[in-house]
């Protein structure tokens, strides 16, 4: 009775409506993002195919456009193999932790002016917290699989993710100092008011550190050590198959899109266009903000593929050296430079 009273207290219709709107927003966001994840795989195969003078997927649908849907259906019907000696409960929850943490971080991304699912004042901190949570998915799956490859892959991957997490967090401090906020919406607005229109120019050092750390954080080439197929076959998800594998895969691509979103919102001006561009080409102001935002995200995602097609994989000791000996001092230097510039001007 008391629970019912607590739910149906005066004004519960308003509350229910509010929750309903939030749920609809989230469902639409998830649907759109999952669509983009599916086509990000297609985009990747096409881009890398072209860079290697191949066609990429061509068979399913015109120019292979239905390939992601075919892949998804295939993964639904694949057998779900759970190794006998696996730690079953942990084995089950690991991919869900990976997916849920990557996805929830999308709640604070401003896709266009004032649209975000959760308008909280610690947006950026929340994103970093969620990307730290993702490393639980990695280390638990590596442990639970009860396989040497998965174990070593999970270990390497978690060490890599936590190492680059620091550089990632420190590189964003410069942006926070310039905008005076952790809310991504406020950061984008502060950028629009800034002379250059985006922070990538004064924060060039921070942007560089961020991009490198973001690639390592999402376990992408050339830092895809955990899934180095020539030595660890597939790293932490070697024992996963079918839909469970698909969840890890989706989490990886959502992570990539998420990093693109943060780069877009923190360094490239988010949904805004620099004012001088509008002065030169006045028609640009009629382009909706979401187009700019998604365009910038896809630019970053394209750079991910470009880097993957260009650079060979690093060795593990090189990877750790880059993270600890190069990126962290650079990020601290960036904070110092930003601070000095802000104090002088």
């Amino acid at each position: 009775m008391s629970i019912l009273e607590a739910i149906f207290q005066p004004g519960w219709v308003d509350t229910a409506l509010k929750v309903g709107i939030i749920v609809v927003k989230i469902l639409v966001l998830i649907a759109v993002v999952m669509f983009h994840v599916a086509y990000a795989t297609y985009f990747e195969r096409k881009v890398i195919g072209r860079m290697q003078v191949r066609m990429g997927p061509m068979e399913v649908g015109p120019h292979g456009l239905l390939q992601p849907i075919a892949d998804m259906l295939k993964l639904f019907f694949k057998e779900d193999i759970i190794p006998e000696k696996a730690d079953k409960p942990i084995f089950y929850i690991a991919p869900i932790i990976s997916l849920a943490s990557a996805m929830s971080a999308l709640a604070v991304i401003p896709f266009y002016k004032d649209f975000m699912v959760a308008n909280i004042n610690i947006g950026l901190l929340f994103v970093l917290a969620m990307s730290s949570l993702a490393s639980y998915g990695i280390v638990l799956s590596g442990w639970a699989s009860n396989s040497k490859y998965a174990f070593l892959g999970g270990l390497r991957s978690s060490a890599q993710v936590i190492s680059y997490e620091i550089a990632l967090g420190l590189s964003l401090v410069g942006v926070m100092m310039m905008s005076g906020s952790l809310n991504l919406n406020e950061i984008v607005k502060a950028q629009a008011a800034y002379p250059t229109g985006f922070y990538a120019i004064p924060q060039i050092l921070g942007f560089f550190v961020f991009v490198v750390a973001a690639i390592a954080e999402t376990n992408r080439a050339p830092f895809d050590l955990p899934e180095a197929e020539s030595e660890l076959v597939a790293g932490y998800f070697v024992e996963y198959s079918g839909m469970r594998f698909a969840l890890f895969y989706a989490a990886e691509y959502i992570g990539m899109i998420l990093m693109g979103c943060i780069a877009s919102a923190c360094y490239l001006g988010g949904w805004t266009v620099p004012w001088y561009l509008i002065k030169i080409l006045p028609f640009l102001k009629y382009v909706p903000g979401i187009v700019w935002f998604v365009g910038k995200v896809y630019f970053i995602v394209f750079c991910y593929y470009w880097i993957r097609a260009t650079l060979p994989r690093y060795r593990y000791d090189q990877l750790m050296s880059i993270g600890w000996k190069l990126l962290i001092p650079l990020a601290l230097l960036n904070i110092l430079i930003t601070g000095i510039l802000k104090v002088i001007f």
Partner: protein
Amino acid sequence: MPGTYLPESYLPIFIFIIIATLFGLGALLIGEIVRLRRPYHEKLMPYESGIDPVGEPRVRFSIRFYVIAMLFVVFDVEAIFLYPWAVVFDKIGLYAFVEMVIFIIILFVGYIYAWKKDAFQWE
């Protein structure tokens, strides 16, 4: 109810985490309904390039990983400590900046020490 503080702006995040978890579970459930399952012993062995697994899978691993984990805690706390300072940077001005530089220098000394002790060196 009086006395129950509800941070309302965090409600969407709470709902988002629930829906994201349900999304993962739902995808697995649909898979469970449509896929076939024919397990047998050989298929369920851990993958080791086709040969029978040798020894224990959870092998001893390098002490370096522990060192990295400890260093991570130190530096991550530092990063989090910098956040509130960075956000109010405009309001607190030069004095706080100098203080933070001193803090970073102290931390940097520890960083140099860790470097000299080869904590970042992988053999």
